[in-house]
């Protein structure tokens, strides 16, 4: 590491056993670094990145945020879901909405777009890798594939005031 910055006259003395440990420790960290690189850049398990800046005061005046919910992009294959996090509920709190004709089937690629119109919230879909912050002024985005039919809760994972503990919703996935 930074020992290369050596400006001293004398060399750093390291016990031979500890020298071996230093090598082993670096190796372990390199193994982890390679593993996260494989997961991230080869298997597509990525964290959110910069998506879009928005104005939390006016965002609900225009599409798509004036009508949050499911959009069918490619039937049976690709869906977009827009969700607004508010103190202290998600709009909508059921995906797809009960009166909607759209169904999300198992195996479809579902992309979630979430933003907040007041304070910071969290968004985590249980049993999936979708887990991010919902920050006012920013849009968060991640995609997942639901492999089993059933209902999946999405919950608020960041403290957002008095009603935080009851802030959640459900995605329903059909066969």
């Amino acid at each position, binding site marked *: 590491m930074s020992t290369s910055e050596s400006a001293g006259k004398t060399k750093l003395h390291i*016990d031979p*056993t*500890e020298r071996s*440990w230093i090598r*082993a420790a670096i190796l*372990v960290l390199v*193994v*982890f670094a390679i*593993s996260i690189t494989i*997961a991230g850049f080869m*298997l*597509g*398990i*990525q*964290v959110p990145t910069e998506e879009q800046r928005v104005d939390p005061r006016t965002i609900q005046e225009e599409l798509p945020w004036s009508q949050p919910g499911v959009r069918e992009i490619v039937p049976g294959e690709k869906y977009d879901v827009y969700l607004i996090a508010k103190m202290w509920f998600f709009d909508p709190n059921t995906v797809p909405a009960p009166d909607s004709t759209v169904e999300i089937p198992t195996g479809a690629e579902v992309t979630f777009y979430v933003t907040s119109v007041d304070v910071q919230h969290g968004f985590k879909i249980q*049993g*999936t*890798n*979708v887990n991010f912050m919902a920050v006012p002024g920013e849009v968060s985005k*991640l*995609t*997942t*594939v639901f*492999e089993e039919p059933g209902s999946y809760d999405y919950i608020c994972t960041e403290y957002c005031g008095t009603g935080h503990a009851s802030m959640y919703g459900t995605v329903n996935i059909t066969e």
Partner: protein
Amino acid sequence: MTSDNGDETQGEFKPRGTVAFVAAFVAVLMLMWFSIYIILLSRGATI
């Protein structure tokens, strides 16, 4: 209690127990880290 005979050096003291200890540590670290990593992989891609 300490034998302060001054000529004790690292060279004469071989930390065998320490090597065993850190080896066990690495085993536990790898086991726990990869168990979470496998959960991550099982939940699939996000892009």
